[in-house]
């Protein structure tokens, strides 16, 4: 079974470079932190991220793979499987992760000190988490996906606890315990999927699942069970109802720049993994879709109604992240061709707008508990730039054109609709109204004149945060007016048919 890798394989490590660059950044910041200031580290890491991003672009359409293995199928067909694949979906999702990470870094430049998390470990852990996230997006088998997920989650637990405060610790422990439970369930599910199909590689799994002869009838039960467990495990990580309870506590308990990271990059990466697993490997497996649609519906309802009741802006954004999980999961219910594109589009938009909104919160809040919604009153007259930016983000989150959130929602609706989940799109439309209401209140409060003294941090407006916010707002606006700039890359259905690498 063991095969000595060949020279071509070493060459194909080029496909790995985007990940390696980030990992290198992580390693250097682990060590360099003893000698240079954190600010320098962050700049360096931004550089690494940019290198990684650019490298990803050069890999476009090359379909590079790494750690390949030739397998002979039972019917004599040869099949080349890979543990890591730098195919187009991986690159697209990887770029989304890079964007989110860049914004996190920019924000952390300004706020980490105030949040008392300005340790070099913060940068290191961030980079490790990004490495894990990229691994998930590039994964070619369940084990690589799992490794990526765990690297990311473990770093995430550390990040959430990094601040030496009771809130952060509480949030970290909750995140950790529930994350660990999620991982355990996921791993058990992976074991079952392996048991049913005899392989951990996406390509092989999808082949065995897809062909009738590939799966013994008694294995179908195991497969369904495994797929459901995997789904439940993922559901913990992306906070699908009823596995979402940790989300608001963690997101609102962690320092805001970390909440930003956890609610964007981490979620993007987990969705990337889900896309690989469910739209790729298990696309033809029965059972999971019907459960996912129920979970999605529950998420939409509960996430949106709970967000309505929040008084704290940061916490409201946390619940809105839950609600958005519902929309994102809808995209997952589409066929791989439409769903993948919709999901990836939405993920970028989601990252941009959530990150920009949280960046503003991070910059303006007085304490890491975030700011209450009523504190936003009259923000327009004190920080007109941030207020308008925040309003745009909120409008985009609510799905109002001409901002890109609309197209994200549109694509998600379309993906679910075209795959026969009409009722779900209708439900999503109705719950969006609730979403609009809770986005609208802070959004409009900002523009209402106010005579009481300001309740936000006066010196919050700083260049790096402004760059991050501008990036998010410009992205959301431009992609809303010209969605094709991004959708043109991912609109080709062919690239999504090969999610499993086959």
């Amino acid at each position, binding site marked *: 079974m063991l095969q000595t890798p060949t020279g071509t394989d070493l060459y194909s490590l080029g496909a790995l470079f985007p990940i390696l660059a980030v990992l290198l950044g992580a390693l250097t910041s682990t060590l360099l932190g003893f000698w240079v200031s954190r600010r320098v580290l962050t700049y360096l890491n931004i550089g690494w991220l940019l290198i990684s991003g650019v490298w990803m672009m050069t890999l476009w359409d090359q379909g590079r793979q790494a750690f390949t293995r030739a397998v002979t199928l039972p019917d004599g067909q040869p099949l080349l499987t890979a543990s890591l694949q730098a195919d187009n979906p991986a690159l697209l999702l990887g770029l989304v992760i890079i964007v989110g990470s860049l914004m996190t870094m920019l924000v952390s430049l300004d706020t980490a000190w105030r949040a008392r998390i300005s340790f070099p470990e913060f940068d290191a852990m961030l980079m490790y988490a990004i490495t894990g996230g990229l691994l998930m997006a590039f994964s070619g088998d369940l084990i690589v996906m799992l490794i990526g997920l765990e690297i990311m989650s473990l770093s995430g637990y550390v990040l959430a606890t990094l601040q030496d405060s009771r809130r952060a610790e509480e949030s970290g422990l909750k995140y950790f315990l529930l994350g660990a439970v999620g991982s355990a369930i996921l791993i058990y599910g992976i074991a079952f999927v392996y048991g049913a199909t005899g392989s951990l590689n996406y390509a092989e799994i999808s082949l065995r699942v897809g062909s009738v002869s590939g799966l013994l009838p008694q294995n179908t039960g195991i497969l369904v069970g495994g797929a459901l467990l995997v789904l439940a495990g993922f559901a913990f990580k992306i906070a699908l109802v009823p596995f979402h309870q940790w989300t608001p506590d963690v997101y609102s308990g962690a320092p805001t720049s970390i909440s930003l990271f956890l609610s964007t990059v981490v979620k993007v990466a987990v969705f990337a993994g889900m896309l690989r697993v469910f739209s790729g490997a298990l696309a033809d497996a029965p059972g999971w879709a019907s459960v996912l649609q129920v979970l999605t519906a529950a998420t939409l309802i509960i996430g949106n109604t709970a967000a309505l009741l929040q008084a704290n802006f940061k916490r409201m954004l946390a619940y809105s992240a839950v609600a958005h999980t519902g929309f994102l999961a809808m995209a997952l219910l589409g066929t791989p061709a439409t769903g993948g594109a919709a999901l990836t589009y939405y993920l970028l938009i989601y990252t941009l707008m959530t990150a920009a909104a949280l960046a503003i919160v991070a910059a303006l809040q007085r304490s890491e508990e975030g700011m209450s919604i009523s504190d936003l009153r009259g923000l327009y007259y004190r920080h007109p730039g941030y207020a308008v930016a925040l309003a745009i983000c909120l409008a985009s989150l609510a799905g109002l054109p001409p901002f890109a959130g*609309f197209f994200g929602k549109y694509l998600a609706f379309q993906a679910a609709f075209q795959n026969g989940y009409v009722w779900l799109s209708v439900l999503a439309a109705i719950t969006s*109204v609730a979403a609009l209401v809770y986005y609208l209140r802070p959004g409009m409060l900002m523009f209402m004149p106010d005579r009481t003294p300001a309740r936000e941090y006066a010196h919050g407006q700083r260049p790096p945060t402004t760059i991050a916010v501008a990036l998010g707002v410009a992205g959301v606006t431009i992609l809303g007016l010209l969605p094709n700039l991004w959708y043109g890359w991912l609109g080709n259905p062919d690239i999504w048919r090969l999610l499993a690498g086959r």
Partner: protein
Amino acid sequence: MSRDFIRLLPTFMVFLPMLGSLLLLVTPKRWRDEVAGLLCALTLGIGFMIWRAGGSDLLSVPWVPALGITYSTELSGVSLALAMVTAFMSFIAVLYAARRIPNPGTMLALILAMETGLLGIFAARDLVLFYVFFEDALLPALLMLAIYGKAGRMRALVKFAAYTLFGSLLMLVSIIGIKYLGGSPTFALADLRANVVPAGPTQTWLYVAFLTAMAVKLPLWPLHAWLPDFHEQNHDSGIPDVMGTLYKVGGYGVFIFGITLFPDASLELRPVLMGLAAFTALYAAWIAFHQTDWKRLLAYAGLSHMGFVALGVFSLNETAVIGAMYLLAFQNLYTGALFLAVGMLQERTGSIEVRVGGVMTQAGALGGLTLALWLASIAVPGMAGFIGEFSILLGAYQVYPWLAFVAGITTIAAAAYALTAFQHTFWQARPTGGIPVGDLVHTEWLILILPLAVAIFFGVYSAPALNLMQPAVKAVLAALGGN
């Protein structure tokens, strides 16, 4: 001017105000009024150019090719008429805003931004584009309410936005369904018309979802509840109300998209919808009668008009539809102008209460013009409203005589509530200790006279507008396969 150039004009017309809105951000304070006014006038001018050319042809370029979304615009027929009225009333609004609002930069920018959305709605010939503009107009409206509104505006805001979004998101689902189930390659209207969803429950449900959005914006009972709050909580000057009135585009949406894309469903649902429309008209008139607040009164009056419009559109009868479009276009003039008149009244008396009393004796011009506008509003012959309402009733009678009769009562009710309120404010004895009221000054004359003049002009000489509308309506109804 070549046809190709005219083809581009709607795009200019739509985006010029938005450009102006952005321009205002960098314009020095003292020039803002002039810039806004100039751009509005320019927009109107472009409208005239298109009108002179007899409407523009369809311009269609891909927007998001992978999704079949196109950028298709066309201003001709009904849409041109509506667009021009919109541009005209926006101009009026800008005029009044420049006079009334201190430091009006923000307000002017919002008016212009909203004008873009509204013009876009009329110009769009692609369903998604239509949706985008439809929502796009919402944001400035919300902001006007948020920035200039009154104490209870948050509630009004939420109500307004929630209703609108509720409808439009359902419409979004419907849009997706229309293309997917009909098998059209793009969302362009022409393609969609060529690939209509086959008749049956699917088409009906899609129509219902689409209608929900339009019914909110018409508005149609029971989805009208946002309307009075919206007007009541808005700035006293009435400027946002003008824009809000212009935003009542539901009838147009049903006309341009609804009827042609859901031919069977619209026939099937005709009795129900017409019933609802007639009820809305009557109900709104009845409620209006009880209002003690000019703005709420006007809101319900507008709602009543919209009931008429809906009655006309849903009847699928040529005469009625033309009447509906006519009414839809021109009621903007006098309803909008009335809101501004109320604004002027408020400026003088400090209240929008109906029972101020005795204004006529001190501000004769204001009272006179308001009365004239009211007469236009209650469809006195010789005013534009009359032609619209009469055609609607005539057409509706051919379809469902009973409903036409019910709706006809409304006109009488309208006279009742309008004149009662007018009498309370302007004629009745002035309470002791009342504030002295000055008469119209400066541009205020223009602001009230211009709309009135237009309304009278088209009430007397309707040919230009009818010539514009008739072919368009005929074409749409022809797609239905006759009556």
